[in-house]
């Protein structure tokens, strides 16, 4: 390898790069309209969902979506989750991750470009910026020019608007964790924690969407670094069709390709990159350069699509088909003819789909088969067993009866498959048949201590499995739990 580095003793390049401010230009077009639509839906959901009501009866929050940390409950419309059911959230995260992988291998960085909160809020902040400070050129001119009253006022207005949006964002965040109307009616009654998280999310929104912007995607976010593993030659990615655009130059010269080097694609880019340099880390796949370029092509009466969502396989095919051709309509036609419809049903996509389906079905099944009453038995192990004065052996168990419904009830406890063992539950009444009756309040956990005794004769086995079963008033089994009865070593 030729040594192309600087001579020994030459100063090293700086370890730190100064921030280059980006002034994205406004753009209109199909992709932009799609982005606005996604933004409206996502932000609308984010800000409005805490206000949805869902009647769950007296004494239960009526907020449709609520993470009640204080009482350790998660409410989602008709679903109410307890902390021990956090695996539903895990399942949701797995679904999200696999969904992200699938979307990326099909359509490239659509998540980054359209739906990521960083993109959505940055987009909103840029829109505010343009309304107040003007478009790209006006902003560049004003920033480069001398300080003026006009500039200061505009900047103040911009930051005030940004802070307002940021505060609404932080405010909406804390509303997912407590009753939204109560919070808005009496914000000063909120806890200091609430205020902390409100301030935190206000600050992060303001800083990340107002200042950090593309730096988040390029330097902070891990996702761009490894999503290359999900992309292949058949993924639709934002691509400059160089076979059609090169060589760049003025349209007056007929030897030039379709790219007139107007730099519209660079000016509209929110991360400030040049898509014509090919696939790169900085490209978030938002497709605004497509709109910008199509606009220019229309004005030049040339076909649209010099930049577009394209697979790398098609790009290579078009390039090969047009390798020796001069710029012009013939080259364009040959390049287009070489393209094939994108292969959507690829092994990796199918595998993602299968995993998605399995996790989704498993979660749905778990949700539908979820029991509202659960019995947990924890044997006391200090001591493992107690010898009684008549020579009998006794084990103690901690029973936890959780009732996730809001009705509560009284349940009979019986021991199954345990002939000779006597069951006693401390501090509860027994029914006519002598079975302990365990009361439990709705939406609560009741703890009981059960004593199980084996008679002196026959001697208690060293270890035998036992099963506790709960019966409802009609004698139907409603829950059960297995445990073990321990005796002395024989």
């Amino acid at each position, binding site marked *: *390898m030729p040594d192309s*580095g*600087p001579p020994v003793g030459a100063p090293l*390049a700086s370890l*730190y*790069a100064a*921030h280059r401010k980006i002034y994205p230009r406004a753009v209109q077009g199909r992709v932009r309209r799609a982005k606005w639509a996604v933004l409206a839906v996502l932000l609308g959901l984010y800000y409005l969902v805490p206000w949805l009501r869902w009647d769950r009866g007296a004494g239960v929050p009526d907020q449709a979506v609520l993470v009640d940390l204080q009482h350790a409950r998660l409410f989602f419309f008709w679903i109410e989750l307890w902390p021990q059911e956090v695996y539903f959230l895990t399942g949701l995260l797995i679904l999200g991750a696999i969904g992200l992988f699938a979307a990326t291998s099909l359509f490239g960085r659509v998540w980054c470009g359209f739906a990521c909160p960083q993109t959505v809020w940055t987009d909103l902040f840029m829109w505010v910026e343009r309304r107040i400070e003007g478009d790209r050129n006006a902003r560049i001119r004003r920033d480069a020019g001398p300080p003026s009253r006009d500039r200061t006022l505009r900047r103040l207005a911009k930051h005030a608007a940004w802070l307002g949006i940021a505060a609404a964002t932080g405010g909406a965040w804390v509303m997912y964790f407590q009753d939204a109307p109560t919070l808005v009616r009496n914000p000063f009654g909120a806890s200091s924690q609430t205020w902390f998280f409100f301030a935190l999310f206000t600050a992060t929104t303001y800083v990340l969407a107002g200042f950090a912007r593309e730096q988040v995607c390029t330097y902070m976010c891990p996702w761009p670094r490894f999503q290359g593993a999900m992309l292949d030659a058949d993924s639709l990615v934002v691509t400059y069709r160089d076979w059609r655009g090169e060589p760049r130059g003025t349209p007056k010269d007929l030897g030039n390709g379709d790219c007139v080097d107007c730099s519209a694609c660079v000016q509209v880019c929110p991360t400030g990159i040049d898509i014509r340099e090919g696939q790169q880390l900085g490209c978030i796949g938002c497709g605004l350069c497509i709109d910008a370029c199509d606009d220019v092509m229309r004005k030049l009466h040339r076909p649209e699509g010099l930049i577009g969502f394209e697979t790398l396989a098609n790009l290579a095919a078009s390039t090969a088909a047009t390798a020796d051709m001069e710029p012009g309509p013939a080259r364009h036609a040959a390049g287009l003819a070489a393209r094939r419809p994108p292969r959507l049903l690829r092994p990796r996509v199918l595998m993602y789909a299968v995993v998605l389906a399995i996790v989704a079905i498993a979660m749905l099944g778990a949700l539908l088969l979820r029991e509202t009453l659960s019995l947990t038995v924890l044997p006391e192990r200090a001591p493992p067993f107690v010898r*009684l004065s008549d020579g009998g052996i006794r084990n103690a168990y901690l029973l936890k009866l959780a009732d996730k419904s809001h009705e509560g009830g009284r349940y009979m406890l019986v021991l199954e498959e345990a002939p000779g063992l006597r069951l006693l539950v401390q501090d509860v009444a027994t029914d006519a048949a002598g079975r302990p009756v365990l009361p439990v309040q709705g939406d609560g956990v009741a703890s009981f*201590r059960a004593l199980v005794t084996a008679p*002196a004769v026959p001697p208690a086995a060293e270890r035998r499995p036992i099963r506790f079963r709960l019966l409802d008033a009609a004698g139907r089994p409603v829950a059960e739990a297995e445990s073990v009865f321990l005796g002395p070593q024989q």
Partner: protein
Amino acid sequence: MARKPETDAVSGVATTGHEWDGIRELDNPMPSWWLYTFYACIAFALVWVLFYPSLPFVRGLLGNTARGDLAAVMAAEQAKAAPMLARLRTATPEAIAAEPGLRAFALAGGRIAFANSCAGCHGAGGQGAPGGFPSLADDDWIYGGSLEEIRTTIRHGVRNGEAAEARGTAMPAFLQAGLTMGQIGELADHVLSLPGTGPANAAGAALFAENCAACHGDRGEGNRQVGAPRLDDRIWLYGGDKASVMRSIAYSRAGVMPAWESRLDAAMINMLTVYVHALGGGER
């Protein structure tokens, strides 16, 4: 050795000079804000150390110490528990056991107090230990298993020489009191026959009626008034083999337990009472 700067031919970016199987790492510059974030963290740490020095005998600018913070938290917790503790202090164990809220609090507090003060001898779950530390988890109570009796035992202890009302009378050492080792062996045989676990011994029975029945009862049923343990059950505080029983008769046994009234708050003793009573299933 100074690093020889080297530039990657494709990207034109300097490399770190490290090479793994022909793969070189590019040395792309970091954004400068990253560096400033690092400086900000150092500045924050410097300010933080002024307020929380974490050095012995040094207070922070506002007088903060970790110990002081802990004390404030503890005081707040104690203030929260104070009304409940005040009620537990004056209520009888029966009244505590009868009221579910008080009882739950007492059981939780009793569990902690037990681990602190009692588990050393009686075991973590009250299972006792060989050699004279009675199990509190069984149904055998030397001085009585009612709430009131348990509380009396906890308050005054056993043979401790510090509380006048302490439990326990001394059992004579019968080797000194005139019995021979042969007689003691016969006596032990009789004692072991009481729960039905050994053959009868007529000579031992006669010796038992003469020397032991006054305290332990005619059939070894025990006497809680004087703390004479039951001998007709399967629970042996000092071992149920003949040698252990002979040793108990010959040299006597005298377990000791401190009087907790002078060491623990009344509320604590009441909580312990309820907890210990519940351990073994309790006696009414």
